[in-house]
């Protein structure tokens, strides 16, 4: 029973039972530290994901780029359903998401955003569907999850101005992320380095919550581990070995 193939088979079976990425691909971040914590090794397509910032505008801005980074590494059109009009397209482009790929839907209200999302999710072949809402119910999350599972399109609900201690309602989303800004490295010159985020995976079906300090998206939407931290796991292992 120690045979790796058996283990892999069992894992796949459990994943199928849990309905996680049973039929669809995953979108890896390309950062092992993150991908290894996610079942399937990345963001599951054909599933609903929840992303939140905080009431601070800068945190919502970070979450926006985190999301844009995920979508930048896909192919095909993206539908971005909005309630607010504060999304600034040039920044998406800087994260690698080309403006020609993004179709904005100004739906006007939470209900309409969710309606628009569901409609989009019925169309296979989209790279992703994003909906910005302030509140949404468990029922709505179930509907979106079902629609996403049927079409294989990844769905992202972006909960705007979402407080950290806000009692999270039950949700059918496969993952729930919270992105907040984190102090970046001081370059010692009057200039700014690559932004850093505190990316916390608050909930993941078939996995454990975790958080990372990560460096923000580059021009192709890739996130990275900060250079100072890359070596840390090795150091820890050394310490463990010593002990």
């Amino acid at each position, binding site marked *: 029973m120690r045979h790796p193939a058996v283990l892999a088979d069992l894992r796949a079976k459990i994943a199928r039972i849990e309905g996680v990425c049973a039929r669809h691909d995953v979108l890896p971040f390309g950062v092992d530290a993150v991908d290894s914590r996610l079942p399937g090794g990345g963001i599951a397509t054909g599933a609903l994901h929840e992303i939140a910032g905080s009431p*601070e*505008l*800068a*945190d*919502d*801005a*970070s979450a*926006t*780029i*985190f999301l*844009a980074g995920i979508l930048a590494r896909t192919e*095909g*059109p993206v*539908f971005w359903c909005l309630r607010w*009009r*504060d*999304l*600034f*397209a*040039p*920044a*998406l*482009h*800087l*994260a690698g998401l*080309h*403006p*020609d790929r*993004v*179709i*904005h*839907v*100004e*739906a*006007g209200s939470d209900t*309409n955003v969710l*309606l*628009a999302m569901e*409609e*989009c999710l019925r*169309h*296979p*072949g*989209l790279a992703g569907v994003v909906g910005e809402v302030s509140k949404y119910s468990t029922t709505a999350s179930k509907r979106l999850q079902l629609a996403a599972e049927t079409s294989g399109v990844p769905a992202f609900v972006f909960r705007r101005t979402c407080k950290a201690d806000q009692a999270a309602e039950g949700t059918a989303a496969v993952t729930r992320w919270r992105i*907040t*800004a*984190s*102090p*970046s490295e*001081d*370059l010692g010159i*009057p*200039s*700014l380095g690559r*932004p850093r*985020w*505190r990316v916390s995976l608050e909930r993941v079906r078939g996995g454990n919550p975790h958080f990372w300090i990560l460096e*923000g*998206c580059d*021009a192709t939407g890739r996130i990275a581990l900060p250079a100072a931290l890359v070596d840390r796991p090795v150091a820890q292992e050394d310490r463990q070995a010593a002990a």
Partner: protein
Amino acid sequence: MRRKTGKPRPDGGAPARPLVTAIPDHGRRIVAAVDGEARALGIRPGMTITKARAFAPELDVVDAEPDADFEGLRRLALWAGARYSPVVAPDPPDGLWLDITGCAARFSTERALLKDLHRRTAAFGLALQIAVADTAGCAHAVARYVPAGRPVTIEPGAHRKAMALLPIRALRLPPADVEALRKLGFERVEQLIGAPRGPLAKRFGRELHRRLDQAFGTLPEPIEPIFPEQLPRTRRGFMEPIATAEAFAQVIGDLARDIADQLGRLGKGARRLDCYFHRVDGQVQAIRVGTAAPTRDPKHLAKLLAAKIETIEPGLGIEAMTLVAPLIEVQALRQGESLESLTRRGPDLPALVDTLANRFGQRSLHRTVPRAGAMPERSVAITPALRQPDGATWSDELPRPSRMLARPEPVDVIALLPDDAPRLFVWRGKRYRVTQGDGPERLQGEWWRDGGIEGETPLSVRDYYQVETEAGGRYWLFRLGDGVHAATGSMRWFIHGAFA
């Protein structure tokens, strides 16, 4: 509902002399229509030409051509039908009915729709008066007896009050009846409201109260819409009236198949579809859907229409339905079309865009493209979602925030040096301590513009700074003015957005 009166001038040029048109009537000629100058002289339709000449001996008299006038009216109606509302009808001799219920979405507000209609119709060289009211009768009366010169809107529910103040003539009664009522002391509509109906009906017949009830909305007054000819059209009549959404959806499916067949024979695709529901009481309701690209896929068309069924009031039932494609464009058959659609894996974008656009409005669906604009808020333009992309993007060099405030908000700032990034700023009552900063990026205002910020300070200059706060949040602040010339700005600080 709205009523518009247009009086076409028989000749194109502006007549210097007063002009009237004449029609024969019992062996004499009477005035049919007058222009502004003739009206100013006191000449009114219905006068004899001889009498009119007494007012203005130099009067130009042209024979009226009622048939040509009606044809002109019909053409105007079709134009308005294509642009404003699916339910339009000419109202001879000089009026036009438009049922604009639920049609304002394209223009964002009803006011904007009216303004557009007024402006465009006036540009045709027509004198017009627009009135909007709950009932056709009220709109008819207000358009003719409230010469405001601009569109008049009678607010919902106020038609009763509006009618009460109007003269009896406004009720569309035969002139003899109006005269007789006047002799009895009835001058205005409000006097009729309280008057006992029996004696009046005995003297004037049922017409009087029918018109009164129509104006007040207690009797329905359907508008029978006209359609452009030679366009794909299909109709289904029912033995029994239908009233359920499921039944409508079924019929819409049948109609869509018929119209798709017709479109296929023409080699065209529909850009717009109007579906008319004929109610048993004679009312006609309509739903209109548009498509982003010509299409004749019956399933897609039926789906677009079915999404709007809920706007239909079936009342006692619908006895017939008509589907018209008023806007069609060439949709060529492509070689191997069916094969391609079978093997194609990509999403059916036009179908999705249409569905969303018909639900949330054509304007709410867009892509963004770069625009040459000095200020960041003007660097983004929107373009229809299905426009062929040209790959243009913004500069990769300049940092731009992912969340942008609609209007820059003033912040209080402490900076060590005037040209330095601030060390602390207060925004929305919260204090942010800045740890690092980058800047400035100087943007010069578009001095040639009249509106916006440059309207007041044409030489305005903004110095943008990226700052990072203690918590790591990055914000985009700017200072108005270059710090040397007062004309470039007030040196006040604003916040404009937040970075990742």
